[in-house]
């Protein structure tokens, strides 16, 4: 009896904590639908009296949100595709062998994972401009993001491959499969879920990427949503309801994916970060 009561009290506190923590998110959605005067009212109202739903349509059209989001999707998909194709095999090999070479490779990959993008962009930008890659700005950003995020993907997917029993693969080899066949028909299907979750995580990261896009994409028609949001927020802006509406349109698809796949994403993240 008292245990049930304790559970309820804990649950109430937990919900309160989550509400406090997620307040900024709520504040974004509420501000977005406030009128210009309600936004600057003092004291601020925490519940919109007169919701302006039409703001989404007007911001979508006036700020070209569709084009920005499309560029974000193109860049994120390109990066994920590249990372998945290159990284999966690498993770598989690193999961199957244990020797000094693998340790060294893993160490190198962990080291690359930590290089801050804002520091690496200087040599990447100069190098890319010298080989003419900046003429294809989205490709350049995709390559840079792929290099930046691949280590994280490899670490996550390696953990997945380690959970695929090696005996299954050996059995397939005994039955006459080639290494090639065993990898594509046995190991890869078994690791599919882990690879998918890791790819989604990488996608969400790449979808919000800012430093590389800001530095390398000058042409406004190729810029992703993060750069668009940045140029929307001038130093003395006061259109906060429009900015919050833009932000809401940008972040809602990601939040939807997150809520749907929450359990898998959380377990994927935790398995990778401490291994």
């Amino acid at each position, binding site marked *: 009896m008292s245990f049930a009561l304790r559970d309820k009290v804990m649950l109430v506190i937990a919900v309160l904590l989550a509400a406090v923590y997620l307040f900024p998110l709520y504040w974004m959605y509420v501000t977005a639908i406030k009128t210009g005067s309600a936004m600057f009212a003092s004291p601020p109202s925490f519940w919109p009296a007169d919701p302006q739903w039409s703001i989404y349509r007007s911001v979508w059209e006036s700020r070209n949100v569709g084009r920005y989001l499309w560029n974000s999707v193109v860049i994120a998909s390109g990066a994920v595709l590249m990372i998945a194709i290159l990284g999966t095999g*690498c993770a598989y*090999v690193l999961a199957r062998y244990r020797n000094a070479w693998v340790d060294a490779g893993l160490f190198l990959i962990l080291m690359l994972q930590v290089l801050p993008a804002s520091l*690496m962009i200087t040599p990447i*930008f100069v190098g890319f401009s010298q080989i003419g890659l900046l003429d294809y700005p989205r490709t350049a950003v995709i390559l840079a993001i792929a290099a930046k995020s691949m280590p994280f993907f490899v670490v996550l997917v390696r953990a997945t491959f380690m959970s695929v029993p090696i005996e299954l693969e050996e059995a397939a080899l005994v039955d006459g499969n080639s290494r090639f066949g065993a990898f594509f028909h046995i190991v890869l299907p078994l690791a599919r879920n882990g690879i998918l979750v890791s790819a989604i995580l990488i996608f969400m990261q790449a979808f919000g990427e800012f430093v590389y896009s800001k530095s390398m994409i000058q042409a406004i028609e190729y810029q992703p949503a993060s750069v668009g949001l940045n140029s929307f927020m001038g130093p003395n802006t006061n259109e906060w309801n429009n900015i919050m509406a833009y932000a809401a349109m940008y972040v809602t698809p990601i939040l939807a994916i997150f809520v749907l796949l*929450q359990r898998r994403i959380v377990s994927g993240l935790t398995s990778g970060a*401490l*291994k």
Partner: protein
Amino acid sequence: MRRLLLSISDGRGFDIALVSVPLTFLFMMAGLPLVYNIVMSFQEVDMFSLGTFFRPFVGLKNYATLFSMPETWPILKNTALFVSASIAGQFIIGFGLALFFWTNFPGASWLRGLFLVSWVMPGLVVGAIWNWILSGDFGVLNYLLRESGLITGNIFWRSDPSFSLWAVVIANIWLGISFNMILLSVGLSTIPQDLYEAAELDGANVFQRFFTITLPMMRSTIGAIISLGLIFTLQQFDLFAAITAGGPNNSSNVAQYWAWDLSFRQYDFAQGATISVIMIVFVMIASVVYVRSTRHEVRG
């Protein structure tokens, strides 16, 4: 040729092919820039020599210039302050939350997962939201602080030089709490429960149990999380771009933003590369600590 093909489809060559392509790619896209960065920090780079590889070498001149600039030391001090305040805030709040959710009530793991929402949000969106919350005249944080009696006048978080760095720190702590909490929860769940039962039988109170069991058992997790926190806070760029842009008058500028600002706002690529080299050394040290504290797991 046939033997090579056979090896690739059915032998050692298969593994080597799988691993060599991505490693070559990583080497080209991360290894070479790293080397190039160091080379550039010893060269004179301007807009005209940007296109050529053969620029005049100037030795340590870039480093000398860097440390003679009046803003260098304040910015490095800001970086240290930003990193330590962010890590301390994230870790303490995250640990508190992890301990709270560890008590295991129905719905705990689901609610805990909800906190990770901040981790998947684009940094620019987080920055935009906090920019609005921290706004001086109409910001909701100032309103809440005023109502609770903590302050009497509005704090101009973004434009007051003595608060601008803290504006970014607050946003960064919010961003990092969830990650700290989830990783600490994982660490907590690996502590065997019978240790606590034994301690309880011996009459240890909550604090004794915390300091004699929880903390010692979490040592390697805490080491890993603090070094990860160091790595992540040194990567933090989006919040600076979205909230203060390093201003006013460099009062909220940190090294990783300054390096970008020098390269892409003032087109001083050599100076930007020089700061990058210095900061990358720091990040490398942090990552060695991180790898060492998780080594037993890496080796499996």
